[in-house]
């Protein structure tokens, strides 16, 4: 079979106010990163190499919700999760609730390759990854102003609803029904409504 790579950058409610500039930026990012992952396969790299590098590049791109530019918790902080699994032998590694690992997907791979365990969380995950050469950054490094604005926008509409946290699409829908202009402003021209992004 021909080697193939598939990637995703999240799912949600499609925006009614996608700007041409944002459309182009997202498409370019998707294409460039997919090409980079394909290049790994074309050079004889393994499927694990390809998915790791692809996700690392997505983590480094603030258009997407992972690592640099990630969304924020209700405490205004980042909490990052990542996982890698190898189909040949079903080896697996994951990290969760980490705040200082620049590339959580690399840490997940370290767990898979250097531990008898499958899943590490929090400070223990960070310490394990650091022991194996992972790059640590200050948690504020991940945080972008637009993500703080996104958090404040959601909290302003319902500051304490856990369910609404997950169902932000409902907020976006209410916005659109009540005030189209406000919804357009909130989306910032993103192809998919930022407040509706699933994950």
């Amino acid at each position, binding site marked *: 079979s021909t080697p193939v790579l598939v990637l995703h950058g999240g799912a949600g409610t499609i925006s009614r106010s996608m700007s041409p500039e944002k459309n182009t930026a997202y498409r370019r990012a998707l294409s460039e990163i*997919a090409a980079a992952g394909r290049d790994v396969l074309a050079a004889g790299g393994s499927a694990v190499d390809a998915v790791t590098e692809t996700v690392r590049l997505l983590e480094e791109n603030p258009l997407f919700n992972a690592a640099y530019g990630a969304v924020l918790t209700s405490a205004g902080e980042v909490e990052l999760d990542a996982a890698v699994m190898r189909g040949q032998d079903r080896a697996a590694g994951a990290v*969760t609730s980490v705040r200082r690992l620049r590339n959580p997907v690399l840490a997940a791979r370290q767990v898979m390759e250097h531990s008898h365990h499958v899943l590490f969380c929090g400070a223990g995950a960070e310490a394990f990854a650091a022991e194996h050469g992972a790059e640590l950054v200050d948690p504020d490094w991940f945080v972008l102003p637009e993500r703080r604005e996104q958090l404040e926008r959601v909290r302003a509409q319902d500051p304490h609803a856990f369910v609404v946290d997950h169902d932000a699409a409902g907020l976006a829908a209410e916005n659109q029904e009540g005030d189209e202009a406000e919804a357009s402003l909130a989306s910032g021209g993103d192809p998919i409504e930022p407040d509706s992004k699933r*994950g």
Partner: protein
Amino acid sequence: TVGAVALDAAGHLAAATSTGGITNKQPGRVGDTPIFGAGTYADDRSCAVSATGMGEGFMRAVAAHEIAALMTYAGLSLTEAAATVIHERLPEVGGDGGLIAVDAQGNVSLPMNTTGMYRAVARVGGELQAAIH
């Protein structure tokens, strides 16, 4: 959430997923991304899967492994199994989102039950497609 699945020249599969979670989530909440069989899964005998969506639904449906199980035990194709999970199993537990999957023959499936999703497919020596659905 971001993710990737791949089939390499040796016929092996892999999956990876990474996420910042959801805006305004309760600190400590963990979704499906690092839960194997829910949001991430790979098995050369069936498929590799990476999901994005409302994580609780993917965990309740054990969505990624459900696709593999439908292929292994019910004989469904990748497309049939992925569609069954996204459009039948996931709604049963109140979940929404999408996933990407590839099988050992290089077939790909990218179903979703939300209105939008960022995706790309690139085959070695073939066409690269990137889309905002």
